[in-house]
């Protein structure tokens, strides 16, 4: 759980380098024709002018993201940051060579985009000049990159996957309505975030805690030399609560809760949010005192939320198209198309077109991906059989087309990413019977207990932009369930061992209700909002051991305001000496 450091570093940089004043400039409102037309004109001019160059570009695209947003952050009942931002960022992509081999080949891919800040005021010639200067730079970078690619391919052994570098797709035209920046009662929300953050103060064992309100209204303008022309908007309101503590042996323990919605009225109610934040604060208090897990191999039940995170990290990321091609990739699934990879009763789809599921909004919903492709539902695994991958416009062997999953954050080349990953099951029992099934399984295997995974954290459960994330799973709330009616017992420090993929084939049955987890997912193309949804799942076998982590002691003194001399002296005597 390397949660604390990157998170708080990240929040720190947010305050010192992030936010800006909401524009008294061009309001990010209705879709902006001046901007779109300027982009189109400058793109056409670049394409025509550079057609005489050698090498000439065969593709240019401009993607401009206009973002206005706000951040309100508080800890222990006091505001820590409070800011607005408004910016316009242009991502310029130039491809030279041909679709079969171009400047984006191999490791050069990540160098094939140039980003620039565009004027916020709608002054066409000022915008055009920034686009021109950066297109020229990008072109020069592309021309040089292509030379390197050509040399490199001559020198190196033939690649296993000799797919082209860029797929052929039909141009898309869609002029959506821009969105007006979400207006909100700032004062009321400041007080609300303060109040949420003060929940943690009631628990003296919690060290760092933060509650953040993030508002991100982004409108994306996209034009390409293939004729695509898109304007699309996405509002996101997010409340994020995070807390951490340390057990007396130094293990870091973290809990977080995310509330995402497309508008304020769709957010969970004040009551629900208060209760959920209260719960993670209580969880931390309980975790701190929980015993460490002992090595165990036996039946386990994953809650829907835990199963969703597990599938996102373990299955979803490994089905991203570029992982089947990169030479440094594990390529777990590359050659398993048409073969069983999951029990027959399970199917996995990624459907970014879905705005909600079971009444819950899905954060991974979008109309067009960052390469301008229309989003679509992709059946990744049907009845246990692997069917296809999450594709951007970078083909891999056997999959020559994008399926609308080329995603990334501004400034980074899009790659195949998840949107709304949904796991469906045909072998279900009512959720009320899952516990009984787990106990049956424990008895059948003659185990002293089983495990209930209430919550698992992955890269995307700790949801802040710009956080480096790896796709791994970190079980956070795990309970020992006894077959003899004793109450469940919380344990900490659980680490799943063995390959997670093997574990997937030990799924016995699932619940009926599909749980949704919304969050922000990080990978090589940056941070994108995603959802994962799955029913609760019973595993016949999961192997766990104690995680190796943390060694720093809890704070020496109790927090200010809760001075109890006996607590201090007890802690002092607990572990004398030792450094």
């Amino acid at each position, binding site marked *: 759980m390397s949660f604390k450091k990157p998170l708080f570093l990240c929040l720190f940089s947010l305050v010192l380098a992030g936010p800006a004043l909401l524009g008294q400039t061009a309001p990010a409102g209705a879709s902006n024709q001046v901007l779109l037309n300027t982009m189109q004109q400058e793109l056409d001019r670049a394409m025509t*002018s550079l057609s005489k160059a050698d090498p000439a570009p065969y593709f240019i695209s401009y993607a401009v993201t206009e973002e206005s947003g706000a951040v309100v952050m508080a*800890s222990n009942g006091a505001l820590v940051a409070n800011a607005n931002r408004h910016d316009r960022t242009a991502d310029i992509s130039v491809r030279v060579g041909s679709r079969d081999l171009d400047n984006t080949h191999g490791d050069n891919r990540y160098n094939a985009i140039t980003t620039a800040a565009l*004027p916020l005021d709608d002054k066409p010639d000022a915008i055009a000049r920034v686009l021109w200067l950066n297109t020229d730079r990008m072109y020069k970078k592309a021309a040089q990159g292509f030379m390197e690619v050509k040399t490199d391919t001559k020198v190196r052994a033939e690649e296993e996957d000799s797919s082209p570098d860029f797929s052929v797709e039909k141009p898309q035209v869609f002029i959506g309505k821009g969105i007006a920046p979400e207006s909100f009662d700032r004062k009321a929300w400041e007080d609300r975030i303060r109040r949420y953050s003060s929940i943690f103060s009631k628990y003296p064992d919690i060290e760092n805690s933060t509650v953040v309100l993030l508002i991100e209204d982004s409108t994306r303008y996209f034009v390409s030399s293939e004729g695509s022309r898109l304007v699309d908007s996405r509002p996101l309101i997010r409340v994020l609560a995070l807390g951490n503590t340390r057990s007396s042996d130094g293990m870091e323990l973290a809990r977080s809760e995310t509330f995402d919605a497309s508008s304020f009225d769709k957010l969970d109610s004040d009551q629900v949010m208060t209760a959920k934040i209260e719960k993670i604060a209580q969880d931390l208090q309980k975790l701190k005192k929980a015993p460490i897990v002992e090595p165990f191999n036996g039946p386990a039940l994953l809650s829907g939320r835990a199963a969703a995170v597990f599938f996102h990290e373990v299955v979803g990321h490994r089905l991203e198209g570029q992982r089947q091609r990169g030479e440094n990739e594990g390529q777990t699934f590359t050659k398993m198309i048409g073969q069983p990879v999951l029990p027959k009763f399970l199917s996995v789809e990624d459907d970014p077109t879905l705005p909600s599921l079971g009444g819950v909004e899905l954060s991974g919903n979008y109309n067009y991906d960052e390469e301008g492709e229309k989003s679509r539902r992709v059946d990744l695994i049907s009845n246990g059989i692997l069917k296809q991958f999450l594709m951007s416009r970078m083909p891999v062997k056997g999959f020559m087309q994008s399926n609308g999953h080329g995603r990334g954050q501004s400034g980074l080349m899009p790659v195949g990413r998840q949107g709304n990953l949904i796991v469906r099951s045909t072998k279900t029992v009512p959720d009320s019977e899952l516990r009984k099934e787990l106990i049956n399984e424990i008895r059948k295997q003659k185990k002293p207990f089983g495990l209930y995974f209430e919550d698992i954290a992955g890269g995307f459960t700790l949801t802040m932009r710009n956080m480096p994330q790896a796709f791994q799973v970190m079980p956070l709330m795990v309970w020992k369930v006894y077959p003899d009616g004793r109450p469940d017992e919380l344990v900490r420090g659980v680490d799943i061992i063995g390959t997670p993929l093997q574990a997937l084939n030990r799924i016995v049955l699932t619940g009926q209700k599909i749980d949704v987890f919304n969050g922000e997912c990080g990978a090589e193309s940056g941070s994108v909002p995603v959802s994962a949804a799955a029913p609760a799942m019973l595993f016949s076998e999961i192997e766990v051991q104690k995680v190796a982590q943390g060694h720093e002691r809890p704070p020496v003194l109790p927090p200010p305001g809760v001075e109890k001399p006996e607590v201090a002296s007890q802690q002092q005597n607990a572990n004398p000496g030792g450094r």
Partner: protein
Amino acid sequence: MQRFLSTILLFVTMSVFALAAESAPPSAAPTDDHGDPVLKAMIAELKRSQEKLQLGQLQRPYYIEYQVSELEDQTADATLGALRSDQVNAGRLVRVVVRIGDYKQDSYFGSGTGAVEMMPTDDQELALRRQLWLATDKAYKAALTGFTEKEAALKNVETETDLVDFSQEKPSQSVGDLARSSVDMEKWKQMLRSTSDIFRSDASLESSNAFLSFRVLNRYYVNTEGTITRSGKAVYSYAFSGTGQADDGMWIERSHGWVVTRPDELPKPNEIQKEAKQLIGTFKALEKAPLVEDDYRGPVLFSADAATSMFERLIVPNILGIRPDLGNPARTNGEFASYYKGRVLPDMFTVVDDPKAKEIDHQTLAGNYDVDDEGVEAQKVTVIDKGILTNYLLGREPIRDFPHSNGHGRTALGGAPRPSISNLIFKAANGASFEELKKKLIDMCKDQGRPYGYYVETTGPQLSPRLLWRVYVNDGHMELVRGAIFKQLDTRALRSDIVAAGNDTYVYNRTEPLPSAIVSPSVLFGELEIQRANHTREKLPQYPAPALSTVTASN
């Protein structure tokens, strides 16, 4: 005898502190919070930590300090009349240093140099104290580690035994007013639009912009020696710049700016306009200017402006009393480490660093402060006296022959304070007028049979000349040239080759790395080498820039 005495003194000091470490450390935390909620929280937590912080039987802190920085930073830029960025960064953070050991040898080493946490912007005592508590705990544990790391490192090196780790200084009580930003941002954003719009007049420029940075920094400081300080400082900067390419691909960059400490000192619209137009004019002149082809080795006149940049690069880093790494016996890690009481400039120069100076010749000085970031009162220091290096600028980490701070330990934001300049003022005895210097340049060239000498008006990064003129001997006319660099412009050249200086004054206020000022007269080198620059020249744009409308939209 002297060594013997100091050894005894040292022994006494050490035993005093060894005793102190066993009993409760003397509580010298400040008590008067001056009605300030931030200071109140800091004092409360400092006192609690000083009295109670101890892990098991491990050493207790002998020293704790808190510095809270409260920042409000407004930045914006515009290009060709359109606002491009507009940001406000605001927040508070605290840097906590806990030291264990004693003044002679302590934990301020490796991991043990402090901890930083964010602080609430609301003045809520418990929430403020909570962050202080977390940072203090982190800093204490870091100090325990640092102390061990230091002991381990000391086993591997020979060290100067008479240098203490941390100097003892008189506690300061200086609670001043906080600064608040009072500029009309809308007006200034409009100013950025209109300034950047002026650059439309030269469509050949590839990029140009006008930008501003208005920063207010309030500081709160307490330590367990009884120091309590509060201060506020504002720095306003406004600038514009442009970039173009000559036909041969050479980059031409120009910029102009103002750095002041009060909003009313910011330039007026007509002044900005005049300077911008003048700067734009230099692009055309530079594009047409001939390239420097031949090596030159002769007299060169630096304007006062160019001289401040030269001194910034060649003198500033070398007068800082920064102790070198453990085991390195040098006095400082700068080039002047062994020049104490030695010549570093011709004897016409006297150089003073004066943090208390607020202005010179009615021009604001950006490096003004009363107490430094280690809680030590600012002192005026004569660094170079008639060309002889007499002092270094010092914080609380002593260097050989300088056992005490002279109030120059400074930090920009959350970093560790280091010796830094404040207002570094170069003055020359018997300074000549600029015209006299120019005449002297011509006379020297004439004597040496040269057709021309060189005059440096401004410099860019790495001391590369931006506006460099040939001054012709026959009629004194000046010709702009481009594509030159100085060769061997170093501390030796400063010491030996300056023949005269002016009675003029240029104030170079800078915001980075810290608000500070360098003030200098014009300087005439008897001999300096100027060569053709062999930079790789970038290709011109592959296709022409889009047309610019000449209709100005602003104003």
